[in-house]
């Protein structure tokens, strides 16, 4: 085998430009596939991290009637905070949230809004909840950048909100926008107004009640609580996984096209080699190679393109991939309109597994594509090959 490797290397390097053009095309496939997969992993990582920091923590208990896709369910989805979680809550490892339906009236327009009560001293989310801890004649509130964009509200603006309390009575008050946050998590930002939890309890007449209980530690065992449904972190981020899976399928088509281009170059080189190098094939046989060994030599030669491509790809790809991991890739269109947890700039994340898998897949595909045309050698007549006669 090492003889074949040695000869294949000599043949490839000796072939000069033809080899390096093929190697360049193949190395481009390596770098692009690793980069694109890295962007996907980076997006997955960013989406889940942002969701953890702004929305779901380490997992949640949902009130049994709560349905995030049905606003009408909010009328019934609240009940007293269960005693089982009181200790966690006191330690700050669990945050209750009450969500009620309401309306907001920016510049005289009416917009539906979800009013979410949150404790100002919470440390579980990266939300600017400390901005709620202020003395003002209006109710302090903060909103996300998406909500600020659609309502055209700024920090310091005052705006009227309306809600219905537990007894069905409509009431209204003025809120002061104390802060606006950016999270990349649309469900944490869109149509949501965050208020101090105790003020929302007063406003809704739902003292001590919550819709969601978010805990910090995703690893700890959580008890079943009657009337509450445990939603582990994995389940809450499942949507991201499915979305990325869908996107990955689309990307796979692109990888396939890239690989196809590279493989076409290899296949073309191999077919050309076998036709142009008949005399050489005959010489190998005359000097003591069997036809199978010549097939092996040509297969190794073709496969070696992938090895050289990995080296060439590493030479220019590593600096490029490292630079991308540092500065990220900024999407050319506004990502906030996508309706999913996606940052405007994605930072690719590359794992050793990703690199090894890509190199293996490309190398094995190259070996297969090199072998297929080389099989023709096994049927060659060596005496005619020696004369360079096309077979």
């Amino acid at each position: 085998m090492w003889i074949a490797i040695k000869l294949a290397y000599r043949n490839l390097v000796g072939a000069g430009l033809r080899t390096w053009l093929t190697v360049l095309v193949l190395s481009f496939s390596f770098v692009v596939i690793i980069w694109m997969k890295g962007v996907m992993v980076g997006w997955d990582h960013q989406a889940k991290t942002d969701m953890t920091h702004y929305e779901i923590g380490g997992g949640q208990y949902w009130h049994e009637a709560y349905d995030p896709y049905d606003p009408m369910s909010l009328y019934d989805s609240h009940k007293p905070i269960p005693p089982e979680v009181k200790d966690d809550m006191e330690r700050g490892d669990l945050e209750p949230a009450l969500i009620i339906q309401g309306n907001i009236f920016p510049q005289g327009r009416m917009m539906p809004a979800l009013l979410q009560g949150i404790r100002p001293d919470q440390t579980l989310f990266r939300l600017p909840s400390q901005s709620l801890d202020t003395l003002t004649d209006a109710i302090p509130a903060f909103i996300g950048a998406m909500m600020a964009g659609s309502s055209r509200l700024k920090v310091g603006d005052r705006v009227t909100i309306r809600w219905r309390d537990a007894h069905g009575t409509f009431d209204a008050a003025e809120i002061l926008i104390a802060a606006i946050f950016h999270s990349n998590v649309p469900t944490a930002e869109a149509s949501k107004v965050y208020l101090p939890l105790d003020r929302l309890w007063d406003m809704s007449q739902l003292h001590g009640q919550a819709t969601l209980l978010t805990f910090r530690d995703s690893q700890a065992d959580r008890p079943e609580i009657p009337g509450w449904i445990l939603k582990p972190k994995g389940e809450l981020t499942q949507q991201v996984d499915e979305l990325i899976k869908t996107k990955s399928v689309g990307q796979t088509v692109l990888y396939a096209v890239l690989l196809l281009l590279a493989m076409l170059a290899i296949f073309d080189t191999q077919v050309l080699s076998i036709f142009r190098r008949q005399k050489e094939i005959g010489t190998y046989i005359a000097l003591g190679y069997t036809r199978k060994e010549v097939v092996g030599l040509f297969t190794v030669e073709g496969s070696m393109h992938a090895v050289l491509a990995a080296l060439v790809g590493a030479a220019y790809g590593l600096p490029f991939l490292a630079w991308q991991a540092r500065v990220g890739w900024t999407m050319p269109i506004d990502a906030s309109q996508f309706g999913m947890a996606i940052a405007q700039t994605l930072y690719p994340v590359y794992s050793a597994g990703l690199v090894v898998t890509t190199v293996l897949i490309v190398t094995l595909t190259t070996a297969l594509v090199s072998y297929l045309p080389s099989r023709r050698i096994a049927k060659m007549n060596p005496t005619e090959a020696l004369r360079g006669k096309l077979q």
Partner: protein
Amino acid sequence: MDIIQIKDLNKRFPMGKGAFTALNRVNLQFGRGEFAGLIGPSGSGKTTLLNIIGSLDIPSDGEVRVLGHSVGSLSQKEAARLRREHLGFIFQSYNLLQVHTVYENVEFPLLLLRTTPATRRRMVLDALDWVGLTGREHSKPPQLSGGECQRVAIARAMVKRPSLVLADEPTANLDAANSHNILRTMETLNRELQTTFLFATHDDKVINYLHRKVFLLDGRVDKEETTQSN
């Protein structure tokens, strides 16, 4: 002792609905250290016979034994082994590996024999010395003249010190001076190393050097001549 024994050899090639007979009841023997040639016009069967002796082809009928091996019954692997260990080939158009250097071309048969690097180096340099190419190790075939290319081919054929060298029209692409040079080199190697040389040729320059001449005509042995070695 005969290293080639040919008995009632026939070789036919399919041609249309029939067959073309390239060799017809050929009977020959060649001993160790002979400097012999198969002589005849184009189509007389000399290259076909050389290919069968070189185990690159098989007889249709009859038997060809080379160094005790019956060529017709060898598997591909056994035939490759016979060529690798005992036979050297010299071709009309040199058949050098174009992208390899002179050194690498000559080294190739030794790589197949898995010779150690130190031995390999010594043997390659010796072979290059025999053919007067010392100092040209790093040149590649496109940088060499026809005569030099054929010298490389001889070095490649001789480097493993084979029992038998088969040379098919080795001077066909060379001028007179180069042809004589090449032939003198081969004759010296034949004398010093006792390697059997078997040529296929119709070149008078080669014929004059041969110690034994086997004339072929239409696939048959027409006549034989033996001359005293120089």
